[in-house]
């Protein structure tokens, strides 16, 4: 039995969904969510959540090939979903499906 904690907050779920089929950098994740009509997430929520997802092992990060930004010298980082991350999303989907399918047991049964 797996002891991995698959719990996701709503924002983490959306971020993980944005990474499901593509590796993306932070701003791209925001654009993907916003332009698909999803919930608005700010920078202030995105990066702390990405770090938490990385700590949990749901995403992996890697440096981009782009040159560092000319003024700040900051590099771009790409995030990619891991197998555990995919499993966490599937678990969430299963939970939603089982909630949708739940019916009360008939009385006196």
């Amino acid at each position: 039995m797996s002891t991995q904690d698959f719990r996701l907050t709503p924002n983490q779920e959306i971020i993980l969904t944005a990474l499901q089929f593509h590796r993306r950098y932070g701003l791209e994740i925001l654009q993907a969510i916003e332009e698909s009509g999803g919930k608005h997430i700010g920078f202030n929520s995105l990066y702390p959540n990405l770090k938490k997802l990385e700590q949990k092992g749901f995403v992996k990060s890697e440096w981009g090939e782009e040159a560092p930004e000319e003024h700040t010298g900051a590099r771009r980082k790409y995030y990619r979903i891991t197998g555990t991350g995919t499993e966490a999303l599937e678990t969430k989907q299963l939970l939603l499906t089982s909630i949708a399918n739940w019916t009360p047991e008939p009385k006196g049964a």
Partner: protein
Amino acid sequence: MSATDMELASKMGQFISRFPEEWQTYQDWLRDITTSHCDLQARYPTWQARFIFRWRLIYFFLYTCSIIAFHRLQHLWRRKRKPLSLGENENVPISRDFFRLHRLATIIAMAELTLCSVAAFTGIMLAFYYEPTALGAHRSLVAIATQISYGSLILSLHDISGNGLIVLALIQIVVMYLGRQFLVPWLAAWFSGLLMALAAIGLSWTAIVLNWDQTGFWRFKIELGTIASLPLVGPGLQSILTGGDGISSLTVQHLYTVHSYILAISGILNSITHLTALLYQERMWKSEATESLGRKTKAWNNSSSS
């Protein structure tokens, strides 16, 4: 993007890049903030784009700084548990942070002794003119403040040094608790520090009564009732303080004696004991560290010659 915004982002980047661990983790955030500016300008009026951009930068900076501070505190906590190491096998039985706390405690103890000396000196100066009677106490203090040369200055110095002593004695209790060692010199310093804090508070309390103004008188009357209600010792303590059944000239004389002789001398003696114990402990640690280093050097010399 305006040059000011760019300069701000650049400065923040330069500052955070001094902390490699956090810079590695969060530099992509800064990069995306600077990249997002074009998009902001396309969507919002200039002032609003600038506001959002700056807000993002400031939030990023504050967030990263709080992470940096948190990490530094974690490092400090880990180092506190790690002994001061002089080599692989030779450890001095104290940690760096204990030593720093101890040095701070010694500095505070020196400041306390200085304040005690100032309070004692100014107290002696005031005693030349102070009249410890019910009728004369307040009048003499007013005369000191208004008629005697430098009287106001001496009175203020006495007041400031007394209050400063209380503040330092309380800070010292916290500092000594953080650097607790449970060795004989530390225990001597700890108890003398506590007694000194109590003496300083007692001096402050008796000084209020010695003013003999309305506030001091009524406050003393109320507090005397509280003291008298203490089981067993209460009535005795009340009669010692008042010198009889009620508050009178004798009360002022008694409190003057308690203030100027018992508490003041106790404060000075405790302050000297406190500083001496701390200096002794520091010397003990230094000799241990030197011996440990000497043993290590000797071992190293032996191994290199063979």
